[in-house]
């Protein structure tokens, strides 16, 4: 197995597994519970695992070396901008009654933007230096 992937699984694997398990468990359980406070509490079951996952990702980022930190932070900044533009566009379309968007769409947009930003920044550092300028020159 790739050493980077092995390290990622060791750092964030338990938190991610707990997250997915708690999301699936909470969704299945929520359908069997009567609407009300109990259902709200059941739907919030994944929240602690989200916080654990966030802590795992941040502590992993802080342990990385400076170039990797820079790549991650740049990807997060680009992902934020991308998801912001998409979500704001969807909000305007919804305000204009063009169509209705579910709140869960925002999570998907954020995840997709983060993956796209990671690919863009990693590719830029690996292949595009010299063509679109050295990333270090922008410091």
């Amino acid at each position, binding site marked *: 197995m790739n050493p980077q992937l092995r390290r990622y699984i060791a750092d964030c694997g338990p938190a991610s597994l707990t997250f997915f398990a708690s999301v699936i468990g909470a969704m299945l359980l929520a359908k069997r519970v009567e609407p009300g406070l109990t259902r709200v509490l059941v739907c919030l079951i994944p929240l602690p695992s989200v916080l654990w996952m966030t802590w795992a990702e941040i502590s992993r980022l802080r342990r990385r070396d400076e*170039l990797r930190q820079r790549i991650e932070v740049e990807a997060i900044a680009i992902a934020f901008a991308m998801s912001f533009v998409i979500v704001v566009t969807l909000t305007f379309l919804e305000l204009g009654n063009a169509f209705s968007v579910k709140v869960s769409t925002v999570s998907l947009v954020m995840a997709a933007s983060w993956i796209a930003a990671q690919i863009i920044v990693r590719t830029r*550092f690996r292949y595009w230096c010299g063509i679109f300028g050295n990333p270090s020159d922008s*410091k």
Partner: protein
Amino acid sequence: MSRQTINAIETGKYDPSLPLAFLIAKLFKQPIEKIFDHGA
């Protein structure tokens, strides 16, 4: 420090921070200006 970072510094794709540059200079027991030349 990762292999990716070492490779990026060697190929000029990434300029290390001053603390890291001093650490590299100390590791090779060389003055910093001998290892990192801006015009190179």
